[in-house]
């Protein structure tokens, strides 16, 4: 492979930024590349995403000179690196102001007034994406701060780069953030504010997975141990790998990311592989609008995730784990990075975990603004330094996953469930909840409720009970509908909320729990605008690989805009509804991955159950 690099030179700042993440420059030239080149290049490729982050963080965009230098160092073809960089929303391929304010325009914030905020920001700060100014603002997809929207994220490139969030935000906050940047902004609300149950003793007593959030110091390993930390890992070592898998299987734990696949079966399948090298991937890329549970767990109790991953790695024989953390979570990144470094320093990660001869370590991979990278195979491509496009299944990740090796890929919430399972035994865990849905579930309640936040309940509570627990619909308003499962989920009507929030209960009511999104809409909701936002979300987030999703999400949005915004005859509307149904069915049947397959679900349920678009 004889690569050709852009003729533009990198700036000193770009070289330094790459030095910091890749080490001092040691460009492999000429004959050296011939000798070890292909092998070396394959090893270096997974550093691509981190190197792109380094450039973006330092100078605010990915310039031709910077990209060329990166490609020289990593031996990556420039066209491929450009293809990867341009895939992610957080990387700018054009020069832009170093300070950027991302104003959430997504579903949960929309219920809380994001539309008015965007208008006010436009009036006060001018148009989005202006150039030639110190700071620019832009509308953003969900920032995962749904319990306290409308939210903004402020980023500033530099050495070091800074990030901060403000939620709830007003237009003045955006103006101030544009003027002074993230450094001058006030402190973020404490993590525990997102867990309303923790405010009362009886509420706190119900918590299992969230019990340490707000109780322990998330930066202290000693405090974590003082609150029961690492007891589960000790127990796991005592029962051995097969013992752990037995307990997880007996617990009937299923994946919490949305697909509800039995965790024990996945672990057993990886453990049974003959290939020695295996990987563990923790999916912390929660980007489903209205989902923020993983953020709360990582921010409030990061060591629990590290302990749970170590147990999983021990059970399945993985030596290397990855946490794929969504890019818009500055505090979660800080807490998790600190926790991993501390655990490694103290012998809880590394070549000899707890002195027992077991080797395991964790790398954080920071996402860069792509919802699709939460898909279980797209996440592999992203970690490997390729475009985050889903792979074709079969083969499944348990056989051929990250770097082509058997891989366990589990959501954050799924993994932390393993701690009580190992401590109390699988059967005890299976006794919680219902026959078909065991354990507790963390729900992300947002929108028109008095106390939005994450709520942890044993499976079996009804949707009405959950909404009541969150204080119900405030200000004398009445409930209009609930969006379950986020943009990829479906709506239920106000008169349908008495079913139990279990896998089987949701299925019986022809809906889904998904990742646990419960977005409450009151009678003031502007349903057409809300639906257009869902359509716009999928159009933005489609990776573009397969035709049904790439073009279908665009045609879906166009038809929705025509129906809801244009003066239309009944016949025209009928034709567009037919287009919606035809396109939706093809997306569901023929798309490669879950994104396209569910891109029509919420809109379909709005038409069929809420009577929208009539």
């Amino acid at each position: 492979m004889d690569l050709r690099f852009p003729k533009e030179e990198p700036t000193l700042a770009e070289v330094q930024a790459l030095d910091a993440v890749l080490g001092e420059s040691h460009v492999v030239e000429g004959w050296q590349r011939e000798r070890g080149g292909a092998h070396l290049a394959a090893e270096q490729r997974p550093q691509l995403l981190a190197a792109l982050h380094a450039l973006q963080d330092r100078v605010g965009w990915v310039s031709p000179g910077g990209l060329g230098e990166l490609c020289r160092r990593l031996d990556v073809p420039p066209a491929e690196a450009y293809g990867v960089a341009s895939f992610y929303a957080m990387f700018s391929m054009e020069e832009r102001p170093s300070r950027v304010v991302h104003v959430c325009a997504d579903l949960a914030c929309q219920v809380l007034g994001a539309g008015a905020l965007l208008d006010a920001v436009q009036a006060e700060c001018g148009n989005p994406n202006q150039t030639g100014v110190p700071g620019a603002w832009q509308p953003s997809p969900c920032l995962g701060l749904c319990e306290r929207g409308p939210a903004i994220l402020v980023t500033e490139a530099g050495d070091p780069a800074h990030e901060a969030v403000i939620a709830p935000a007003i237009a003045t906050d955006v103006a101030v953030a544009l003027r002074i940047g993230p450094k001058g902004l006030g402190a973020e609300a404490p993590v525990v504010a997102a867990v309303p149950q923790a405010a009362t003793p009886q509420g706190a007593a119900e918590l299992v997975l969230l019990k340490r959030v707000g109780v322990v110091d998330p930066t202290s390993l000693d405090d974590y141990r003082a609150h029961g930390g690492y007891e589960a890992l000790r127990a796991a070592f005592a029962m051995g790998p097969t013992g752990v898998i037995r307990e997880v299987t007996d617990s009937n734990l299923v994946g919490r990311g949305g697909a509800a696949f039995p965790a024990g079966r996945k672990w057993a399948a990886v453990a049974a592989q003959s290939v020695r090298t295996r990987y563990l991937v923790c999916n912390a890329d929660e980007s489903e609008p209205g989902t923020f549970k993983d953020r709360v767990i990582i921010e409030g109790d990061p060591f629990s995730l590290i302990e749970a991953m170590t147990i999983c790695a021990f059970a399945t024989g993985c030596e290397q784990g990855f946490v794929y953390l969504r890019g818009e979570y500055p505090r979660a990144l800080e807490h998790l990075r600190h926790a991993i470094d501390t655990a490694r320093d103290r012998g809880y990660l590394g070549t000899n975990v707890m002195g027992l001869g077991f080797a395991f370590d964790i790398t954080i991979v920071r996402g860069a603004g792509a919802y699709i990278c939460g898909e279980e195979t797209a996440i592999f491509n992203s970690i490997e330094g390729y475009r985050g496009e889903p792979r074709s299944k079969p083969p499944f990740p348990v056989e051929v996953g990250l770097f082509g090796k058997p891989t366990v890929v589990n959501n954050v919430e799924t993994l932390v469930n393993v701690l009580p399972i190992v401590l109390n035994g699988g059967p005890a865990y299976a006794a919680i909840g219902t026959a078909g849905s065991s354990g507790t579930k963390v729900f992300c309640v947002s929108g028109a409720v008095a106390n939005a936040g994450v709520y942890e309940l044993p499976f079996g509570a009804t949707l009405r009970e959950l909404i009541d627990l969150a204080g119900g619909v405030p200000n004398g308003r009445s409930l209009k509908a609930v969006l379950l499962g986020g943009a990829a989920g479906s709506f239920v009507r106000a008169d349908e909320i008495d079913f139990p929030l279990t896998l089987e209960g949701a299925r019986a009511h022809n809906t889904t729990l998904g990742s646990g999104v419960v977005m409450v809409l009151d009678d003031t909701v502007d349903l057409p605008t809300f639906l257009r936002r869902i359509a716009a979300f999928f159009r933005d987030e489609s990776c573009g690989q397969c035709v049904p999703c790439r073009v279908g999400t665009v045609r879906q949005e166009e038809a929705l805009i025509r129906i809801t915004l244009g003066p239309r005859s009944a016949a025209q509307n009928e034709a567009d509804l037919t287009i919606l149904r035809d396109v939706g069915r093809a997306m569901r049947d023929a798309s490669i991955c879950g994104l396209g397959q569910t891109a029509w679900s919420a809109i379909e349920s709005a038409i069929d159950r809420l009577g929208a678009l009539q």
Partner: protein
Amino acid sequence: MTSIYETPVGLPRRAVSIQIDGEEVKISEGATILDACKAHGTDVPTLCYGDTLDPVNACRVCVVEVEGNRVLVPSCSRKVEPGMVINTDNERTRHSRKLVLELLGSSVDLSAAPMVAGWNDQYQADPMRFGESKTVRQPVKVDNDLYVRDYSRCILCYKCVDACGEQWQNSFAISVAGRGFNAHISTEFDVGLPDSACVYCGNCVEVCPTGALMFKTEHDMRVAETWNESVQQQTTTICPYCGVGCSLTLHTQDNTIVKVTSPHESAVGSGNLCIKGRFGFQHVQTLKHN
């Protein structure tokens, strides 16, 4: 991908028994559903499938129903399993194929893709039904004398990227860039081909199914409306330049070479050529002065 290096000379393969549209079919283990359909004589349309490339199953026009699967599966990449019950032509597969043709046809110029018009009739696809809608229409990129890139015709089948990259040429001059409907084939920062890593082997042109990549000679003749495939002759011969001996198919119109392809079944190059064989034909027809 089949090449001389992968000629199956190992142990004999087991036969797998499957059902296609109600009929029992035996096919060797490791074959795809598409292989089985071809062997059985069942017609399945394909667009992004390339006979010399790994399937990317991106276009989804070849989807079939495999009983027990929640969604339709791409026949080009899905391997057969014993006992599979496959429906290639029921209402569900016809619906998805029709919609794929409509969605593609509404956004991309498919006029140079030979099979599409027939499929539109077969599946009663009406690409115009979406009315005024977003397309990938854009000017033709003409930045060199050998081939042009008309991305208004591009269906993003990834074949050119794969042929340029690790599957054949190892030049890596192009990649898919952007995301969603804005995804497109691009060099780094969209620089012109002369500034890119392109070596003008034209192997991307060879695999392009829709005429998005085209010999400049063909493009110019189409613009001048002199392109006429019905009077063209195809002559397969051996490339005279070096000792490798690649097969060439010379396409001639009015006794002039207008483009060069290479037979995909050729064991020497599997349809691949270098710049000399692909584009170096002018000396054959430059007439001697006096």
